[in-house]
C-alpha cells in the first residue's frame, strides 16, 4: 500500500474533502486516466479502510464518513473531467444498482462513471434496491446494460432471483455483475444465465467497446 493511498484514505476518514480533492487533482495533472485513478487510488484506499476495520483501528461509523466523502469526491471528479472532455454520445443506456440490503455502492458508482465517460447515458440507482423498483425502472427506461453489485455472501443468496427476473425483460439487456467477492467465489453456478461477472473495473473498460460493436459479450 503506497503512502499516497494511505494519505488519501486518511483524508476520507477524517472527512477532509479539500485535501482529498488536491490529491485527485495531482493524479489528473500527472496524466492518469479515470480507470487508473479509480483502481489505483480510490479502490485501494477503500480496501485499506476495510483492513483498518479488520484490524480494529477504526469503527463502522468512520467507514460511513469515509464513504460519504468519497461519494462526493467521485461526483466532483467526474464533473471536473467532463468540463474539458466532451465525449460523443454512444447512444447507449446503462443502469446500475446494488442488491437489497447491500450498502457498498462506491465500486458500482465508479463503474457507472466509466460508462458515462464513454458517452453512455447512465442511471445510478444506488444501494439497497428492492427488485420491484429495479424492474419498474428497467421496463420504462429500457437500458442496454444493467449493472448490479453486492459485497456480502448474504446478499449473494438473492443474486439468482434478481438475475432470473432481469432475464425476463422483453428488451434483453446485457447483465453485468460486480463486487469484491466475484474474484473469490464462483457465482456462475447460482445463475443459469448469460450474466457477465466483472472482477475488476478494467474488465468493464475492455468489455464496453466490444459490446458497442455488437460482438461477443464475454470479457
Amino acid at each position: 500500500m503506497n503512502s499516497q493511498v494511505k494519505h488519501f484514505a486518511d483524508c476520507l476518514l477524517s472527512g477532509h474533502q479539500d485535501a482529498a480533492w488536491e490529491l485527485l487533482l495531482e493524479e489528473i495533472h500527472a496524466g492518469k486516466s479515470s480507470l487508473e485513478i479509480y483502481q489505483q487510488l480510490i479502490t485501494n484506499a477503500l480496501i485499506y479502510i476495510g483492513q483498518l476495520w479488520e484490524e480494529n483501528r477504526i469503527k463502522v461509523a468512520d467507514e460511513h464518513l469515509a464513504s460519504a466523502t468519497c461519494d462526493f469526491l467521485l461526483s466532483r471528479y467526474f464533473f471536473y473531467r467532463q468540463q474539458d472532455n466532451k465525449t460523443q454520445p454512444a447512444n447507449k443506456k446503462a443502469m446500475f444498482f446494488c442488491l437489497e440490503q447491500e450498502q457498498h455502492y462506491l465500486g458500482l458508482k465508479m463503474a457507472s462513471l466509466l460508462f458515462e465517460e464513454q458517452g453512455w447515458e447512465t442511471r445510478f440507482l444506488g444501494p439497497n434496491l428492492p427488485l420491484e423498483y429495479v424492474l419498474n425502472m428497467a421496463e420504462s427506461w429500457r437500458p442496454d446494460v444493467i449493472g448490479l453489485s453486492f459485497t456480502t455472501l448474504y446478499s449473494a443468496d438473492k443474486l439468482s432471483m434478481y438475475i432470473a427476473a432481469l432475464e425476463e425483460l422483453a428488451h434483453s439487456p446485457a447483465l453485468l455483475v460486480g463486487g469484491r467477492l466475484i474474484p473469490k467465489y464462483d457465482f456462475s453456478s447460482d445463475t443459469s444465465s448469460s450474466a457477465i461477472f466483472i472482477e475488476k473495473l478494467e474488465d468493464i473498460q475492455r468489455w464496453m467497446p466490444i459490446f458497442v460493436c455488437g460482438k461477443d459479450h464475454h470479457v
Partner: protein
Amino acid sequence: MYAGRIIMSSIEFLPYPCFVVDQHLYIMERSQSSGFTFGPAMNFLELVDSESRKKAERLLKNGFKSAEGELKMATKDSPFSLFTVRINWHKEWGYIICTEKVQSLNDLIETVEKQRLRLSETNFELFEKKEALEESLRNIRELSGPFIKLSKQTALVPLFGTLDHLLIVQNEFRFTHEAAKGDYEQVIFDFHGVGDITEEGMGAFGQLISQLKLMGARSIVTGVKPQHAFVVNNAGVDIDASFIKSLRDAIKETIQ
C-alpha cells in the same frame, strides 16, 4: 464444577448478552439475555458473521488481554448486526459482553442515505428537465425553418433565430426532401427573422445551397442585414445564391 457454578451465578441475570468462554472461545456460560438475541452455539465464533471471524479471533484472544472492538454478528433477527464486543480475561476465563449498535448506527446510515437520495433525485430531476429542454430546443429549431410553397416553381423558407450549425443540420433533410418532392426551381431563404449568424452556421448553409443546386433548385437569399453581411462575407464559404434585398422584390421576380 465449582468454578462453573460461580460463573453461572455471576452473569445469568445481567441485562446484556454476556458470555463466559474458555481459551478456545467455547461458551461455558451465557446470560439469559443472550438467548433472546442470539441462537444456540457451542463456540462464540459461531455467532460471529463468517467474514468477521478472523477479526473476532484476533480481538478476543489478543494475548488474553482485555479488548474492545466492533464485530458483525448473526442475531435471531439479522444475519449481521453490528455489536461492540468487550472481553476481559480472568485466569483461564474470558468474560464477554456484547452491546448492539443498531440504533445509533442506523440513525447515521439513514441520515447519510437520505442526503444521498436527495442529491441523486435532484440529479435526476435536473437531468430530466435538461432532456425536456433539449427536446423543446429541437422543436423550436424545426419551427424556425418552415418550408412554404409559394407557387409551383417557388418555395419560401423564412429562417428565425440564430443561424447556427444545428439549425441547418437539423432541418437540411426536410428542406432537400421537400424541394425534391415539389420539384421547385427556386427556394427563397429569408433572413429577416435571423438574429445572429455563426461561421459554422454559414458553412452548413453553403452546403445546403450546393445540395439544392445539385437537385436543380437555385437559391435566393433575402433580408440580409448589415450585421449579417460581415459574417456572410468572412465565413470563407462560397454561397452559390442570388442575394436580393427584400423578400417582396424576390417574390415579385420569381412569381410572374
